[in-house]
């Protein structure tokens, strides 16, 4: 098995694995990052979403060999419980989760949106999150959290 050098959350990391190993398992198991979640393995649910070179990417279908030389960002790099990122704080303020299994992917898709569209419309937020499934039914809270983080008007607030 070859070694792969990956730049994850600003740090250079090395992993020895097969070329086709999905980035998801490297992030979770080798680098012990909890936030990308296995949901479907088919890029259908969005719970494994990370950012690669600033764009949202489904780590479950991204081979680690294709991630070499790119900037990989996971939720862990945004903030901590004591110093949360604006999106993390907004998700807490809106209590925008129930089980929370989809939450990391939601926040990363929202981060990718806000990085290029700092003041999105509600329609743009829903479009950016179209590939992220939530089964608990917290969609409206998630939209409000993204609006709050972006400092745009929250409907009904």
């Amino acid at each position, binding site marked *: *098995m070859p070694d792969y050098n990956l730049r994850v959350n600003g740090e250079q990391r090395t992993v020895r*694995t*097969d070329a086709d*190993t*999905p980035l998801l*398992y490297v992030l*979770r*198991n080798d680098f*012990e*990052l*909890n*936030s990308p*979640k*296995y*949901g*479907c*393995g*088919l890029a*259908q*649910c969005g*719970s494994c979403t990370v950012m690669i070179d600033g764009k949202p990417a489904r780590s479950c279908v991204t081979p680690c060999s294709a991630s070499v030389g790119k900037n990989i960002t*996971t*939720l*862990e790099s*945004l*903030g*901590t*419980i004591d110093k*949360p990122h604006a999106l*993390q704080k907004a*998700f*807490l303020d809106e*209590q925008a*989760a*129930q*089980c*929370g*299994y*989809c*939450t*990391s992917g939601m*926040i990363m898709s929202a981060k990718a949106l806000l990085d290029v569209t700092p003041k999105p419309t509600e329609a743009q*937020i*829903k479009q950016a*999150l*179209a590939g*992220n*499934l*939530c*089964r*608990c*039914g*917290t*969609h*409206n*809270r*998630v*939209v409000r959290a993204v609006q709050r983080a972006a400092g745009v008007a929250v*409907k009904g607030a």
Partner: protein
Amino acid sequence: MNTAILSRRKFLKQSSAIVATFSLAGPAAIAQQPARPALPGGLNNNRMLDGWIRINANGTVTVHTGKCELGQGILTALAQIAADELDVSYERIEMVSADTARTPDEGMTAGSLSVENSGTALRFACAEARGMLLAAAAQKLNVAVEKLSVADGAISASPVRVTYWDLIKDINLKREATATHKPKAPSQHKVIGKSLPRRDLPAKVTGGAAYVQDMRLPGMVFGRVVRPPSYRAMLASVDEAAAKALPGVVAVMRDGNFLAVAAEREEQAIKAAQALRASAKWNETPDLPPGGTGGAALYEHLKKMPSRDMVISTKTPAAVSGGKVTSVEAEYTRPFQAHGSIGPSCAVAQLKDGKYQVWTHSQGVFPLRTDLAKALKTPVANVTCTHVEGSGCYGHNGADDVACDAALLARATNGRPVKLQWMREDEFGWEPFGSAMVMKMQAQLDEAGTIVNWQHEIWSHPHSTRPMSNPAGSFVLGGWHLENPAPPAVPNNSPQPSGAADRNAVPLYDFPRQNILLHYLTDMPVRTSALRTLGAYANVFALESFIDETALAAGVDPVEFRLRHMKNPRARAVIELAAQKAGWKPNAKGDGSKGRGIAFSQYKNLACYCAVVAEVTVDRAGNVKVTRAVSAVDAGMVVNPDGIVNQIEGGIIQSASWTMKEQVKFDRQRITTRSWADYPIFTFADVPAVEVHIINLPNERPLGVGEGSQGPTVAAIANAIANATGRRLRDLPFTAEKVRVAVS
């Protein structure tokens, strides 16, 4: 959902040998002795005070509950209750939940019962502990109890003062509760009734280890299971050696029809499982019902299946007023539907010195332990099950099954812990679905437009095949597939008033004559079990759609018609509030493209009261958009308002997704729904705006909300489509194709 709890009580009465086993687990068995006075809520079965509360020298309080966090916020609500009743700050409360080695056995976390059962137990247990601490303080300070005041665990009567943490040695919580100390009056609540933020969310939004999927133990290996291609397929041959030879493979396990692999790396386990699957030859039988891709054939088949027939409720007064009556009749259908957890089920298991330790997101660690022991053919005492959160489950998904898979595979890993997660296709292919159902409704109206006769007839498979649903069987999948299997048994339908297949089929309306019948279909060619609300979703769909159909026949506005037949004041209040908040215009006719509908239920006729007004738009192609849902809910005493809103709102959105999109598909041999592409659910574009209005009744006991809004939502949508188009949809889900046919 309390099937398992009821079954266990019955079981304990019948089986003294098992009582002895249970007494090892704590005081559950004591409750079976007849002379003991009944205690409130979960205290009745778990009577020791120290089973619930420990006061710690470091200034914290540890609260034990047999209920578990499923993303519904229960640990937050229970901590609020404990903080208020004990008079300590919320931050001092540590929660320990659902562990067969550490907590009370409260059966399943299901049926929207946790605040009612565990919450009530904690109110009384904490009030009693507080009383004991006050008495000890009075003695120590030589002051009358009445002169003492408490603030955050500090007891004082100026100028003297002592804290709970100083008094630990002066009280003994290792005794049975008496429930003689009254919990606080609602006016004294400081934390109960507040929307405190959820305790579990900070870790979940920052990548903390929050789920069983995130567990990493020293030496841990990764497991995958290779399930048969269809329910009753028999393994003819498989190349174990080829899989074993793959890189990183630690173990390949074959036992009868059970196949699993363990490997050093997760992707290696997946590859080995794929190799094993590719080489396996199975003998399959085409034994699934017809109509698995849609249409009436499935429902015709259900109505012909062998059944246990039961009268659920009957009212036949001696005399009924004569006169002309109008008869109305309709049949409603609901397909098999999936839990569809976003994270496939997962467990970690380790076998050491003959003892199994299993970390699981099961909703019932105690019932799971019993059924695991049967499958593993080991005494219950050799199995410990500890709850660790998983993805939202919405009922009985693969959680218990994967725990068995991991435990079986742990036999082959030489004491190394194994983490086994199902693949997406395992979850869709093997989770037990919400049963397909047929509801045949008949009513008679008198000349005044009043319902004088009501009949509701149900055809349904069982709605609980959870562990311990029938003590004669074992309900974990892996055990069924073993060479020496631990097979399931036919579970009984839970009796009314909560019911299961018949849940919410008994109307809360006052009808002089009614007849509710259940055809309980005990053969399960398609695996079924508890999906959030059990039969209530489909029964309320039928009941509340049919109320609108009879209202239409009577020429009366649906809100007015409901109120005419409803005496229960709390039910009336939520119907009236939802209508008012939605701006309900009596007798408003839809214009062909827009409409609104209302529906109501009190979940189980025991939990929260909820009414929902849905608004829809319909286009010519049959596309329906649910644009808005306005709900009113009465959950008695409100513990955490935002928690209630989140549950009711989430329930509305989930139910709207079931209603508009969801149907599990199969051919005559296999479940063909295997991925999200085969099973679309609501996405952001589909979700309606949702309003939740709470009626807070602080002097009433708290009522569960987790399953309160799903029933009203489906019927409100059906009624809104009928209002918009003049056409009634009775076959779920309401796909564009069906709507197009109905309106053309």
